[in-house]
C-alpha cells in the first residue's frame, strides 16, 4: 500500500489489514481508468443516455427580482435519473465494478438517494445489491426504501449506534471485510479511505465542468459565488471542482445548522467550532466528537447532511481558505425550500435547500452585475413526509389517516 491520498494533513487510508489488498486493487483500477480516455467517453455516453446529462442551468427569474442583488442561477442535478447528483458517482463506480469483474455491490445510504442510485445501477448492470441504512433513516425515508426493494436490492436497517449514516458506513465495511472477493463497496460520498475521496470527486467533477462552460456561455462571465450543501461533500466537490482555479469565484459550502450551535444539535463540522480533527471510518478529517474521540450524535432536518465527518478534501480547502463554510438552520432551510417551490416551481431536496437558504441570505447584498450559482443536488420527492410535517399540512395528515384506515380495513377483512 502506498502512503497517499493526503490533502494537507487530511485524508489517508486507516483501514483494517484484511482490506489492504482490496484497496490496492481498487486504487489500481481507478488509476487505470483515469489513464484510459475511453473510460471517460464511455462514462459520458452512459450519463447522457441513461441519466439526463448535461443537466441544464435555470435562472431564478422571480426570486432574483424579489430578493434584489445578484442574479440567481441553479445547476439542475435534480434532473439526473433517480433525482440527485448521486447517480454521477454511482454510474462511474458501476463501470469500474464491471472492469474489476465483481458481481455484487454494497452501499451505505443516509437520505436514501445514494441507496436508490446504487440499486438502480445494480439493476442495470446485473449486480447483486445490499444497501445499509440506519434504522432511524429507514423510518424517515420509506419511499426510497420502497424503490430500492422494488429494484431488487436487500435493504438492511442498521440498529447499531445512532442508527444514521455513520453506522450504515460501519456496517457496509463489516460486510466488505467478509466479501471483498466478489463485492465492491460503492461509497456514496467524497469521504472514507483513499482513493474514495478523490475518486468520488472525479466522477462528480462532471457537474463543475458543465457548470463552468454553461455559465460562461450564458452570461459571458463566471459566477461571483457558487453555493453547495455539504454532508459528506460530494456534490460540493463536484461543482467546486469546475471553479477551483478561478480565484475570483468564491466557493461557499453550507452545512446543516440544525437547531443551532452545541453538541448534538447540528451537523456543521467546519462552519461551527464544535468539531476537532480525528480519524474514523478510515480517514482523517474534522469530526463532531468528544475529547476522548467518541463520535457524537448529530442532528439535521435532512438525513443526507446528518453526518459526523466531512470530505478530507473540503477540510483542506477550509484550512487554506479556498472554500468558505456556513451553516443553515432547519427553519431557514424549510423556508427556503417553500419559497423556491412557491415562486419558481422547483422542488429542491432538504439537503440542497441548505445551499438555497444561504444564497438567499447573501444575494440581496450583492450587485445586479453579479451572478451566483446554486447546486440543486437533488429533488425533494423523497422528503414529502418530512416536509408535510414541517409545513404542518392538514390535508396531508388527513390523507395519511385515511390511507391508514383503508389499510387497517383491508387487513381486518382479510
Amino acid at each position: 500500500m502506498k502512503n497517499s491520498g493526503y490533502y494537507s494533513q487530511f485524508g489517508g487510508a486507516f483501514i483494517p489489514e484484511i482490506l489492504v489488498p482490496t484497496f490496492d486493487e481498487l486504487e489500481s483500477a481507478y488509476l487505470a481508468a483515469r489513464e484510459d480516455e475511453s473510460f471517460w467517453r464511455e462514462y459520458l455516453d452512459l450519463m447522457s443516455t441513461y441519466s439526463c446529462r448535461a443537466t441544464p442551468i435555470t435562472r431564478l427569474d422571480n426570486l432574483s427580482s424579489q430578493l434584489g442583488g445578484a442574479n440567481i442561477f441553479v445547476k439542475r442535478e435534480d434532473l439526473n435519473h433517480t433525482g440527485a447528483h448521486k447517480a454521477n458517482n454511482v454510474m462511474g463506480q458501476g463501470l469500474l465494478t464491471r472492469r474489476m469483474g465483481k458481481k455484487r455491490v454494497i452501499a451505505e445510504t443516509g437520505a436514501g438517494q445514494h441507496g436508490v442510485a446504487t440499486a438502480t445501477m445494480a439493476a442495470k448492470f446485473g449486480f447483486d445489491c445490499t444497501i445499509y441504512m440506519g434504522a432511524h433513516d429507514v423510518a424517515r425515508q420509506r419511499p426510497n426504501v420502497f424503490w430500492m426493494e422494488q429494484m431488487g436490492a436487500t435493504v438492511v436497517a442498521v440498529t447499531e449506534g445512532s442508527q444514521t449514516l455513520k453506522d450504515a458506513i460501519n456496517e457496509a465495511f463489516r460486510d466488505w471485510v467478509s466479501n471483498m472477493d466478489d463485492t465492491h463497496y460503492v461509497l456514496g460520498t467524497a469521504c472514507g479511505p483513499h482513493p474514495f475521496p478523490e475518486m468520488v470527486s472525479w466522477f462528480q467533477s462532471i457537474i463543475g465542468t458543465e457548470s463552468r462552460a454553461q455559465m460562461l456561455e450564458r452570461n459571458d462571465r463566471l459566477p461571483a459565488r457558487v453555493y453547495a450543501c455539504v454532508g459528506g461533500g460530494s456534490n460540493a466537490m463536484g461543482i467546486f471542482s469546475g471553479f477551483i482555479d478561478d480565484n475570483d469565484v468564491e466557493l461557499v459550502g453550507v452545512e446543516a445548522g440544525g437547531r443551532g450551535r452545541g453538541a448534538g444539535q447540528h451537523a456543521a463540522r467546519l462552519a461551527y467550532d464544535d468539531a476537532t480533527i480525528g480519524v474514523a471510518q478510515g480517514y482523517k478529517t474534522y469530526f463532531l466528537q468528544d475529547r476522548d474521540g467518541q463520535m457524537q450524535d448529530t442532528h439535521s432536518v435532512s438525513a443526507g447532511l446528518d453526518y459526523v465527518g466531512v470530505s478530507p478534501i473540503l477540510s483542506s480547502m477550509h484550512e487554506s481558505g479556498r472554500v468558505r463554510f456556513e451553516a443553515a438552520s432547519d427553519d431557514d432551510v424549510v423556508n427556503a425550500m417553500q419559497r423556491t417551490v412557491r415562486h419558481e416551481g422547483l422542488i429542491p431536496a432538504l439537503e440542497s435547500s441548505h445551499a438555497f437558504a444561504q444564497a438567499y441570505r447573501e444575494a440581496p447584498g450583492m450587485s445586479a452585475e453579479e451572478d451566483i450559482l446554486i447546486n440543486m443536488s437533488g429533488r425533494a420527492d423523497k422528503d414529502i413526509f418530512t416536509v408535510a410535517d414541517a409545513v404542518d399540512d392538514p390535508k396531508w395528515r388527513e390523507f395519511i389517516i385515511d390511507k391508514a384506515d383503508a389499510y387497517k380495513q383491508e387487513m381486518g377483512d382479510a
Partner: protein
Amino acid sequence: MREQTTLEQSIRQARDKKDILLMTHIVLGYPSFDDSLRMVEDMVNAGVDLMELQIPFSEPMADGPVILRANAEALKAGATVEQSFKMAERMTKEFDIPFLFMTYYNILFCHGVSRFVDDCSRIGIQGCIVPDLPPAEGQEYLDAMHAAKLSPIHIFTPNTPADRMRHLSDNSSGFIYTVARKGVTGKDTAFSDELSDYLALCNSNTDLPLAVGFGVKSREDIDFLRGKVDIAVVGSESIRVMEQDGVGAVKGFIETLVA
C-alpha cells in the same frame, strides 16, 4: 539481530512450560469497570496467560456484533479513556501476566500518540493492537512504541501476501496476531487443513510468536491450534458467556479451555 521486547520474552518463557498459551479479550467498562476487574481476576485465576483490554470506541469498524455492542454499552454507561487507563493500571499491578491494549486509532490520536504510549509504559501495558492503523499511517506510533520498548502488534489475514506479511512483521514486536478468516470478530471459523496451511505460511514469514484469533471458542479449537501457533485468542465467546450466564460463569468457561 532483532531485540526481544519484554512481551516476547515472557511469551517465550511461558511457552517453555506450556505448548499453547491462552489470551482472552474484554471490553473495559462493559458491563461496568467493577465487572471488568472481576472478569480479569477470574480469567487469571483460571489460567489465562495474556489479556487484551479493549478501550471502547464509538466506531469499532473491525468488530462483529458482540464486541460492537459491548463497546456501545460501555460508552453508554459513561466509560472514558481516563477510566480505562486507571482500571488497566490496577490490573497490571494486581495480576502477574502481560496486558495489552486493543483500541482504534482515534483513541490514540485524540489522546496524543506519544502521550498514549508514555501512559501505557507508565501503567505497565506491554503492547498495543490498533486494527485500523497500518504501518504506513503509523510512523509516529511505531517510533514511540519502539522507543518505549513496547510491542506494536500487527495483524496477518488470509488475504495478506507473503511480502506484506514480512513488512508487517518487520514493524511488529511481541507477537503477530493472525486472524483465522475474513470478516469481523465473533463469527464461526472452520478449523480445517486450509487453516493449517495458512498458519504455516504465517509462521514462515515471521520469527515472532504467532497468536490466532477470530472464532476460537472451544477446547477442540484450541487442541487444533496446538503445535501450529503459540497463542490462542478467545475474544467474543467469553463476552457471550458473560452475557448469557453472568460474570460468574466466565471462570468456569475458561477452565474448560485450559483443563
